[in-house]
Structures are given as structure tokens and as C-alpha cells.
């Protein structure tokens, strides 16, 4: 099996040896290639009951936050 390093059209100015070198360095440093990182998703968290409660409390908080900001805007305009 032959492994090739793909190029993006805009990266065509990069030399193949430079690309292979960069891929090797990042692999040794345990860093992903930027395009690999963009397509590899971490995945949804498995939410515990506590986390679900916190997120619901946050939803309530966001509504209150919007109300306070709205009132502050209204006060700022009318005072």
C-alpha cells in the first residue's frame, strides 16, 4: 500500500518534501494536521443528570439575561 499526502489546490506551492516533513514533525509532536482536525469530531458528551440540570438552569439564565439586557437598553434609550 502506498500512502500519499494529499494537497489542497491553494497549497500547491508547498513542496512535497516539505509537506511530508511537516506531517512527520506534527505526528511526532502528537499534533493533528489542521485538515484532519477539522473533519475529526470530538463527539457529543454523555450528559449526567447533574449536567442536564445545569444546562436547563443555564437556559433559564439566558432568558433572564436577555430580559435584563433588554431592560438596560430600554433604560439607556429613554434616560
Amino acid at each position: 500500500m502506498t500512502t500519499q499526502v494529499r494537497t489542497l489546490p491553494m497549497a500547491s506551492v508547498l513542496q512535497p518534501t516539505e509537506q511530508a516533513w511537516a506531517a512527520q514533525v506534527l505526528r511526532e509532536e502528537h499534533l493533528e494536521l489542521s485538515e484532519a482536525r477539522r473533519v475529526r469530531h470530538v463527539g457529543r458528551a454523555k450528559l449526567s443528570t447533574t449536567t442536564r440540570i445545569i444546562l436547563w438552569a443555564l437556559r433559564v439564565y439566558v432568558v433572564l439575561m436577555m430580559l435584563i439586557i433588554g431592560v438596560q437598553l430600554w433604560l439607556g434609550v429613554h434616560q
Partner: protein
Amino acid sequence: MGQNVSLEPPVTTEDIHRAKDRVRIRDLRRKGGVPRRLMVLFMLVGPGILVMLGENDGPSQLSYAATGASFGIGFFLPFVLLTFAMAFIVQELTVRLGAVTHRGHAELIFERFGPFWGWFAMVDLAIGNFLTLVTEFIAIRAGMSFFGVPAPIAVGGGFLLVVAVMLSRRYWTWERLTLGLAVFNLLFVPVAFLVHPDLGQIAHAFVSWGPVPGGFTQQMMVLIMADIGATVTPWMLFFQQSAVMDKGLTPKDIPQGRMDTLIGAILAAVIACATIIATSALFTHHIDASTFQAAEFAQALVPYAGQVGATLFALGIIEAGLVATITISSSSAYAFGEVTGAAHSLNRPLKEAPGFYAVMILGAGLAAAIVLIPGAPLTLIVLVVNVIATLAMPPALVFLILLVNDHEIMGDYVNTRFTNILAVAVVLFLCAAGMLWGFMTVATPLHLLPGT
């Protein structure tokens, strides 16, 4: 012919630049020795110092100046140290998150908690950041007015300088240019010395947390809550984690990342205290600075700090606005790229990450333009941005705690029990102060509280 070809992901300019930066650090580490270890630290500092000095932005510095002019040397000196200690505890979490997951903050929120919270985090951050950028250009304009520079030239020149730094096409170059600018935040320190403060009074303030002129009135408590609530602003969390990711920090760099954040917090705290001490001369001489802007503070300091001190003060305000504009714009651009899946790295040229640079540059440009519009509601913007930044903190802090305790993504670098006790205590305190202050800003004018 007939061979099976397995394709690796494509290599980009971002990867090349990041690999070059990592090789330099790796080679220094291999050589060993104290000077090389210091060089490694020098190479790895950046996100922490920038986020802390970026938080000493134009409006913050003016707020410290107003505090010094209103309350003199006393309670607020040790109080400022406490706020930066809390900021360090919070920001350290973002170093670990970025170095271990190699993901930005908005990206992690989006992926772990879903698109609703991801988009909420990004939009909320973008709105708050945009309004904050307006206040930064107000500060730049006000600082330049001390030198008689007309507003269009001040704002336009500031914008062009910021864009030049943003288009450096390499994260390392961008970071070092911005750090070079951020060093000028230290200009407030000589101003503090030039007013010849009473060193004994300063030492007494740090030990006794006093005096408190007028006592702990309701107005003072509101000011304290506002300051606590504004200790860490949302852009700081998003910026530092994204910068750590873009810089390519790995788990073995966490100690240096932590040191970077600590150095930044210490520098920012010293500068904040210096600003309060500098304008305490106005308090001592009973100068009413309640309506002062940057140029007026600088002008009022001439009799006490001399023309040199006043000039340094005005230059410091300009620098504060410029650095904050660069860092805050970057945080919006990173968040946009992370949530939309677009390329988002300062290691990419403009043509490879057009959306990223568009958000960064157009956001700053629009904010600069608003400042130049005659009759623009700038006072309203300044008022609202404080409320938004303070109220937007609790959700950002809650997600930070949830993510840093997420075993699946953090592995061995998840929070320890001690770190959790400290971080959760600080987060609860910041959230409570911020929410209480936010409630009081509307409850007081609407007479919802007894005695108001």
C-alpha cells in the same frame, strides 16, 4: 498501477508553520540547561500574557484611573490583586483545555453540548466583542486627542496598524508583534512613580485593605460587584484556548503555559495598581474626575506627574486600546471558524482563511467606523457592553468547568479535586457577583429594591 493508495489528510501552510515552530522548541528542549529552558519558556509564552494585558484594555485602564481618582490609595489596590488571582485560576483551565484537546473553546462547546450552545456561545461572544471593540476605538481616539490628533486620523491610523498586525500570515509573527505592543502597557508604571506616591500608604493599603473613603456605601458595593463580575470577560476564555491551539501547544507545554498565564496576571495586576496609584494624585488634591476621559486624565496629571508622565499615560491608553482590539478581534474570528468549520488560523494566509480574516478585520473596521459617526450612541454602547460582558460570563464559566472535568476529552489532565474546589469556588463567586450586579443595574432605576 493497481496499487492501493491510502490518502493522508492534506498538509496546509498552517501545518508547515506549526511544524517549524515545534521543531525550534523541540531542539531547544533536547539541548537542555537553564538558559535553554528559559529560551523554551520565552518561545512558549504569548497567549497568557496577551490575554491578561489585553484585559487591561482602554476602558479597564480608564476604570482604574477613575478608581484612583475617586478613592485614592486604599482598598482597591489589594482588591485588584485578588481579581487577577481569580483570573489566573480561571485562565489556567483554558491552557490545559487547549493543549490537551487541540480545540478552541467554541469548538468544544459546539461538539460536546450541541449546536444550540455552540451557536449561542459564538453569537453571544461576537456581539459582546463587537461592542467592546467600539469602546477600544473610543479609548484610542481619546488617547490620541491628548496629542491633538483629529479623530478620523486617530481611529483610522489605529485601525490600519491593527490590520497590519492581523495580516502577518504567521501566528508566531502576529504573537510577537502584539507582545511588542503589549509591553507598552507598562507605561503606566513610571507614571505611578512620577506622582511621588506615599510608599508607606501603599504598603498599608496592601496589608490593611484600607482606607475606604466614605465607607462601604451601596454605590461602592455596586462598583465592587461590577469589578468582580468583570474580572474575566468571555473573550478571554475563548481567545486563550484558541491561541494555545493555534500556537500548537501540547500537554508537555502545560507548565510553561501556566507560567505564561501567571506572568501575564502579575504584569497586569502591577499595571492596574500603578494606574490607580498614578491617578490617586487627583484624589489627594480633590480634583473631581467623575466625567474625565483619557485626555482629561492625562491633562489633569500634568501638575503632579509632569508633561512626561501625562504623555506616558496617554500613550498607555492608546496602546491598551490597540492590543485589546487585536486580541478581541482574534477571539471572534477563532470562534466563528470553530463553529462554522471554516479554516481558522493565523498561520494561514488571507486567501486560505477568508472567513476568519473577514470577521477579524471587518469587525474592527465597523467598530472604528461607528466611533466616527457624528451622534452615534457611544455612551449607550459603553453602558450596555459592561452589562453584556458581565452577564455573558456565567454561561462561559459553567461550560469551562464542565469541559475541564470531562474525562473523555481531558484524560489524565482532568481537574484534580483541589483544582476543582478552587476553580468552582472562584466561578461561583464571579457568577454570583456578576448576576447580582446585572440585576441591580436594572432594579435600581426601576425602584425594585427597598430604599431605591
